[in-house]
């Protein structure tokens, strides 16, 4: 039987196993919406702004490992989605975005709501397609999911001209597709892996540094096993938190600009650095000239272009982190060589010395609510088992520092692009994927206002997100830089004329709370968690002048941190 492009679209997504589509209708996608409305296996979540749709799909993907799916209309629908697509691209999040397009005969005519969707998104997608014939639709959709989910994952856009969604053809969804120009490497080179194990075992001051690749590649388990078997210290990047249990004694905390003193000092002092699914980002390395001066470096990554991009490595291994780590683990078990016990002990002695500085301590005597304290309490109240999304700014760093993640896919934040507005819509995607779990969105009064409209979506779909607004009446991270590097000239970093967040939450049909005293923090969190089915907006009035410490100033090496 012949089906229309719109019906084929719906069938493809169902056959692909898609659960949710995050979207917003408009002229160019009306055929598709008509088809969506006549079925109920595929659930559509109507957001309030297309940026929200992309972040929600992104949050869903990060929390589940399955691709997020977005549907937007042509023109402004797509341009509104670009921020979210770029956010997903920077963090290698699998996502498939369907955009409406003007009918094929109008393309290039400056037609109503026409923009060059493929052109605009080209630099921020893994790949994109324009479907010009309904006969290509099913195969293109299959290819889009295949590309998004394999190799280094990422967003793929499929542009759908309106007439294509009306044309008819026979439907069949390909079981698999091959693309001659796309063959991602899975297995690492055995010789390189052997060399890596040998070098690792010969280390006297080893350090393991892992990133988002461990999370995306579902490799937390072999990583944890390998790290424990070796007894080596380990640090995670902002994107890699949860890749190794934070509560374990071998974990030194996050590294980089706002990482811990012990993690950064151990990086600087190590003789063998084992980098796994991490990309030596500038926020991690500090001044590249001063990075790990004495280390031989092993690097596993699925993307060959991540290797030796910023830092030259000695033993590169291209492959899936999961398979490579398992292979290393097997070699390790068979190996007669053992790590040098005395050297390792001396190294741990040194590390524990750095640790004793207690670099994350903060003042608890001021009588004001300290943001760090709120996060410590959130950790306690949720027993470290919540899904935590965040926006971008100081609150993001504090969440990363003070909420210890023991499991992967629990910490959901925009690391690469640093997109304010990410936290709330991302939390929607996470909550839909995990309806029974606690999902907390840690945000600031600046960031939350960038996608605040999604409070309405949360009501419609009954998403009981717990919003932790660390309200410092400042664009805190901007203010901190101005304090340190611009002689306290606070240009445009104050946030005044703020709404009454309690009333705002209430007017959206949710519960609002304002918390002004340290003693009220814990009870408020407990109460919010008790309100099981409700979204609770907790507006914590925090110490305005608190800064994120420790910190590596621009141009400094990892061993040159500013401590409190």
């Amino acid at each position, binding site marked *: 039987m012949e089906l229309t492009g719109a019906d084929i679209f719906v069938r493809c997504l169902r056959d692909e196993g898609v659960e949710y589509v995050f979207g917003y209708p408009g002229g160019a996608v009306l055929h598709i919406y008509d088809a969506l409305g006549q079925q109920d296996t595929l659930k559509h979540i109507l957001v309030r702004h297309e940026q929200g749709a992309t972040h929600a799909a992104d949050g869903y993907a990060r929390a589940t490992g399955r691709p997020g799916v977005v549907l937007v209309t042509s023109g402004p629908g797509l341009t509104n989605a670009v921020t979210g697509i770029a956010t997903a691209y920077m963090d290698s999040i699998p996502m498939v975005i369907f955009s409406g397009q003007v009918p094929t005969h109008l393309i290039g005519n400056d037609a109503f709501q026409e923009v060059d969707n493929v052109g605009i998104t*080209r*630099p921020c997608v893994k*790949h994109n397609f324009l479907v010009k014939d309904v006969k290509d639709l099913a195969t293109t959709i299959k290819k889009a999911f295949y590309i998004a989910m394999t190799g280094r994952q990422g967003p793929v856009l499929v542009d759908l001209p309106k007439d294509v969604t009306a044309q008819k053809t026979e439907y069949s969804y390909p079981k698999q597709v091959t693309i*001659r*120009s796309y063959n991602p490497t899975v297995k690492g080179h055995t010789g390189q892996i052997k060399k890596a194990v040998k070098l690792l075992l010969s280390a006297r001051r080893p350090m393991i540094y892992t990133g988002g690749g461990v999370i995306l590649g579902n490799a937390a388990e072999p990583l944890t096993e390998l790290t424990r078997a070796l007894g080596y210290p380990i640090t995670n990047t902002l994107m890699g938190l949860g890749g190794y249990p934070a509560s374990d004694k071998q974990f030194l905390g996050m590294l980089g600009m706002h990482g811990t003193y012990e993690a950064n000092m151990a990086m600087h002092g190590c003789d063998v650095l084992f980098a796994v699914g991490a990309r030596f980002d500038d926020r991690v390395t500090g001044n590249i000239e001063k990075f790990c001066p004495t280390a031989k470096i092993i690097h596993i990554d699925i993307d060959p*272009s991540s290797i030796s991009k910023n830092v030259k490595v000695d033993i590169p291994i291209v492959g899936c982190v999961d398979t490579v780590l398992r292979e290393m683990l097997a070699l390790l078990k068979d190996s007669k060589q053992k790590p040098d016990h005395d050297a390792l002990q001396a190294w741990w002695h040194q590390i524990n010395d750095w640790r004793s500085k207690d670099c994350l301590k903060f003042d608890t005597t001021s009588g004001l609510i300290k943001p760090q304290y709120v996060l410590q309490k959130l950790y306690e109240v949720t027993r470290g088992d919540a899904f935590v999304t965040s926006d971008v700014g100081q609150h993001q760093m504090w969440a990363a520092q003070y909420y210890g993640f023991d499991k992967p896919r629990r910490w959901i934040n925009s690391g690469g692009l640093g997109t304010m507005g990410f936290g709330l819509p991302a939390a929607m995607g996470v909550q839909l994927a995990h309806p029974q779990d606690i999902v907390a969105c840690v945000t600031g009064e600046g960031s939350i206002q960038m996608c605040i409209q999604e409070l309405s979506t949360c009501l419609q779909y009954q998403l009981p997100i717990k919003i932790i607004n660390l309200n410092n009446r400042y664009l805190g991270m901007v203010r901190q830089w101005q304090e340190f590097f611009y002689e306290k000239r606070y240009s445009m970093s104050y946030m005044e004329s703020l709404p009454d967040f309690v009333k705002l939450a209430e007017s959206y049909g949710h519960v609002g709370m304002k918390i002004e005293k340290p003693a009220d923090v814990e009870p408020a969190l407990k109460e919010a968690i008790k309100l099981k089915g409700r979204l609770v907006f907790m507006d914590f009035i925090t110490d305005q002048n608190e800064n994120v410490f420790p910190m590596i100033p621009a141009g400094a090496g990892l061993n040159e941190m500013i401590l409190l």
Partner: protein
Amino acid sequence: MRRIISLLLENEAGALSRVAGLFSARGYNIESLTVAPTEDPSLSRMTIVTRGSEEIIEQITKQLNKLIDVVKLMDLTEGGHIEREMMLIKIGTTDGNREDIKRLSDIFRGRVIDVTGSTYTVELTGTGDKLDAFIEAVGRAQILETVRSGVSGIARGEKSLHI
């Protein structure tokens, strides 16, 4: 370091802009870029001449390989290779210089392919250096127009870029 990178890419709308976009987004330089379909109409062959340190060239080849439309890639400068560029050049003529220009173009193995009372158009093929040398020899003052194809390259011997 000057490098000549040869690519086979899907002969599809947008493939060229993916390559060009990659170079501009990452700040790599392009000295020249040529592209045309091959004997297999589903494939285009592209030759890119670029400059950069060893690290940058390594990144360029990796980033190009990462593009889904790129089927295969070869750095021609890693081995023996031949490069050619074609130039069409229109030169203003007078009774005084016509002979000289004809002679010059013979020396450079060019051909005069169009003549008017006041112009010669010469076709010339060779390496970029040779084309530069011809332009120098003619003298800028007399040149009305030059059109260069950009470099095309191919490996020497049995090595070849195919799928």
